[in-house]
């Protein structure tokens, strides 16, 4: 039963609950028209304190496609936040007007705070360099629909693994599936945080290696999850400039990959995947973006208890 629940991090839901969301997403993809009135009369509050294209649009499109309405802001300067209103007060107020809230915030833990003071379900749409659980739902649905299952994979996570919230959430979620191995490819300055290694990987006896070279590890991967080195996460521009082009996926690197390897990316990309890769059938990142809308439709419907 997901009605009335919050989604702050991937472990908030069991694998069975996630399966329920994926099955509903499959059903929506199959016959979207049957769901166009499910959220009629319902309102989603879209609280984006940080720029976003895919996440915000996909949530708003998801609500509209379910027959619901959307209120909110896409930058805090257009709300009382700019007057210094707290997250707690904002969510208490929004709870009076909306049925469900989605929050993107640059500060880590902000959606957690919102959930503590909210009368309506709160969905974390990304908090700083911390977690991004709905991107994880998107990633898992893409893997499930492409490979037929989520387990039994070797996944390479490449790029900014330190601040890459999508990677943190994905590793946490995948740690609960059978026979998942990780290859964590990053420059030494952007390695995966210790708490993920110790609490998620080592605690669960999950096989992983840390590496710095992409080409050397390509051949073993079933999935390559590329990430962007994010300028907005650096306090020091020099560090960003030094690290931003650490990994660029090009056709010659793809030569080393399995014929059915999946290339995923949470997007936006800057230059870490060469545009020539887009025509490779293994490049699934735009398909992934589309699945993101469907999985969010399923999530909203479940949390509102309409499906």
């Amino acid at each position, binding site marked *: 039963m997901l009605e009335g629940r919050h989604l702050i991090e991937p472990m908030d839901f069991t694998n069975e609950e996630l399966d329920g969301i994926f099955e509903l997403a499959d059903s929506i993809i199959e016959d979207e028209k049957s769901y166009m009135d499910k959220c009629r009369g319902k309102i989603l509050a879209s609280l984006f304190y940080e720029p976003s294209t895919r996440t915000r649009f996909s949530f708003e499109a998801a609500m509209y496609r379910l027959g619901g309405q959307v209120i909110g802001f896409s930058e805090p300067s257009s709300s009382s936040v700019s007057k210094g209103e*707290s*997250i*707690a007060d904002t969510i208490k107020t929004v709870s009076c007007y909306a049925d469900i809230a989605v929050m993107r*915030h*640059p*500060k*880590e*833990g*902000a959606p*957690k*705070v919102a959930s*503590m003071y909210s009368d309506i379900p709160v969905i974390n749409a990304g*908090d*700083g*360099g*911390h977690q991004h659980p709905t991107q994880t739902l998107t990633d898992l649905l893409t893997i499930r629909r492409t490979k037929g299952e989520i387990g039994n994979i070797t996944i390479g996570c490449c790029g900014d693994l330190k601040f890459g919230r999508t990677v943190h959430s994905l590793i946490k979620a995948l740690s609960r599936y059978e026979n998942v191995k990780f290859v964590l490819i990053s420059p030494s300055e952007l390695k995966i*945080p*210790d*708490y993920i290694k*110790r*609490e998620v990987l080592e605690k669960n006896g999950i096989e992983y290696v840390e590496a710095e070279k992409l080409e050397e590890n390509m051949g073993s991967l079933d999935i390559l999850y590329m990430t962007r080195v994010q300028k907005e996460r650096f*306090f020091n521009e020099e560090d960003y400039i030094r690290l931003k082009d650490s990994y660029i996926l090009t056709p010659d690197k793809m030569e080393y990959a399995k014929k059915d390897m999946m290339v995923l990316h949470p997007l936006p990309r800057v230059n870490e995947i060469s545009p020539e890769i887009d025509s490779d059938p293994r490049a699934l990142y735009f398909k992934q973006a589309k699945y993101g809308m469907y999985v969010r439709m399923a999530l909203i419907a479940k949390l509102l208890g309409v499906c």
Partner: protein
Amino acid sequence: MTVSINSIKKGIVIDHIKAGHGIKVYNYLGLDKVDFTVALIKNAPSNKQNKKDIIKIENAMNIDFTVLGLIDPTMTINIIENESIKEKIKLSIPKKVEDVIKCKNPRCVTSVEKNIPHIFLLFDEEKLEYRCQYCDEVYTFSEV
């Protein structure tokens, strides 16, 4: 020298403090500012610990046992009434620490959001590490 609790009519005896930790407990409880009788006994002989510190407080006072458990989980608290032990409290490493320290991660929501509890959850009992409930930043016991 043996230490007797008979000298206390009503109050608290904090016993089995690791030798040298007594002053930390004394400072945390703000016992330097109180106007009732307090004794800090250092390096008292102990069968279990060889040496221990003891604090005797001749007054009833509210103590946050969570934080004491953080300073030294081996301590025992004896609540004294009518010159005898009314209650014996064994401390343990707290699973949750609230409003004792603040998260130092500049990216943490607690750096901007006022009036929310600062909560840390036990992450590694052996290493005495705690994790911020909001941002997952890890702190060791000494930092806490």
